[in-house]
């Protein structure tokens, strides 16, 4: 149980590292959001469930379950709103540069 939990936590940390390196590899706010939110939610869920496996107790288990359900309910909503804001911002910036070119 401890070995599986440690493996889960190591994989989750790796996914979190990938997500945060995506902040620098990708060029656009929209694609950065794509990398960060998706991979971030998977990483957090893997870390928390690995901790529940290491704890091996229901007092760890149901707390981890609540965190997993909360993250999986809220992360898509937050990422959708964030993507819409990023899209609007890039579009308004494009319009500003277009008017500058025309003027």
């Amino acid at each position: 149980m401890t070995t599986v939990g440690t493996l889960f936590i190591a994989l989750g940390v790796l996914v979190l590292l990938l997500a945060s390196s995506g902040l620098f590899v990708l060029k656009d706010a929209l694609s950065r959001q794509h990398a960060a939110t998706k991979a971030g939610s998977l990483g957090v869920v893997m870390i928390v469930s690995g901790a529940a496996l290491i704890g091996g107790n229901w007092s760890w288990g149901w707390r981890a379950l609540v965190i997993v359900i909360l993250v999986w309910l809220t992360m898509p909503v937050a990422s959708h709103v964030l993507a819409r804001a990023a899209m609007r911002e890039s579009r308004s910036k494009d319009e500003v540069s277009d008017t500058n070119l025309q003027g």
Partner: protein
Amino acid sequence: MMIILLVLIVFGCVGLGVLRFVLGPSDADRIVALDILFSSAVALCTFAALSTQRVLFLDIALGVALISFVATLAWSRLLEKRNSDKEEI
């Protein structure tokens, strides 16, 4: 010993997030960096629970996850509202 290495890697994630938060050309980049920072905070709370063997830190992780949702939602709604106001002008 394993957990110290993992905590150091998560600190690296926090460093990358802070760097993007400071550098970020647009405000949307800053919100994305904030998301990464909150995910790292949940991970660090879990590591604190593991290293002290106290389940109490998982409750703190739950609270941090809730704050992350509300903060991301509020800030991106603010950004969206500001841009739509700019378009009307």
